[in-house]
């Protein structure tokens, strides 16, 4: 089946992804799309440690992910595709020609970022990247866990969380 979950999370594979999403949704595999991680055995080892038995992880560059998309589509298991930032997700969707439901799951505080939700901090440039992603056909929401309500893009871009 086609990958159902496209998630942007700067922590990539971590507890919230494998336990908070992976277990309730019965994820069979994760595709971690990141050029840097795909090129490094050490980085892959780091993230592989977080994946429980019974869940498979694929490490792919953006280019590789584009070519592997059909193989993942044929996989009967439920899958999640992860990128660490908006730009990588945008490049991937543009190169694959796909539209997707993209979840912003975690973009944490950095200098220059403003809090929009408890788990989403954005620079003005990143906000525009999300708008562009939506304009290209993606449905963009923010959602940290499956049990919480997805927040539409327009809602969280118009919201400034108080400190």
């Amino acid at each position: 089946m086609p990958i159902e979950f496209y998630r942007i999370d700067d922590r990539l594979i971590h507890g919230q992804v494998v336990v908070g999403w992976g277990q309730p949704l019965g994820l069979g595999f994760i595709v971690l799309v990141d050029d840097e991680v795909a090129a490094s055995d050490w980085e892959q080892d780091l993230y592989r440690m977080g994946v429980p038995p019974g869940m498979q992880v694929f490490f792919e560059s953006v280019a590789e992910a584009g070519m592997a998309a059909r193989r993942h589509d044929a996989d009967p298991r439920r899958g999640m595709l992860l990128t660490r930032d908006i730009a990588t997700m945008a490049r991937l969707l543009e190169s694959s020609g796909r539209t997707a439901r993209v979840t912003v799951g975690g973009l944490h505080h950095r200098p220059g970022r403003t809090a929009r939700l408890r788990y989403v901090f954005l620079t003005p440039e990143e906000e525009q990247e999300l708008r562009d992603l939506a304009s290209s056909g993606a449905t963009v929401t923010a959602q940290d866990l499956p049990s919480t309500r997805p927040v539409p893009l327009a809602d969280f871009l118009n919201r400034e969380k108080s400190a």
Partner: protein
Amino acid sequence: MNNGITGADPSSGSTAIVIGHGDFAAGIVSAVDVICGFGSRFVPLTNRNLAPEAIEALVRSNCERTGARVIFTDLPGGSATVAARRATRGADGFTVVSGVSVAVLLAWAMHAGTPSEAAAFAVERGRAGLAVIGAPGAD
């Protein structure tokens, strides 16, 4: 294995970092302090709201500030563990222990060996401390 405890003065020992999600580290260190009084041996840190590089910087700066060479984390493969491994990559003498429990921290705090010896001992004690009590069918 010599338990290294007899005759030791654990209060003069070294410091370890404890880092995890939410208030995990502060909570578990508070429990250790209540039980053995050596909570000050640990520096509790949280990864709350922090980007991965900020978690790594937090671990690194606290290791430099305190001289800690052992880092305890809450979840194997979690962002705290990833950060601890990145912060100590290529540096000698560091030990990262993931999946920490109160039993592990108590054993580490009470051990008189080197920090890494104490960590290895503490992990064994932690594993031994896991038990299912009153399992169905048990006498």
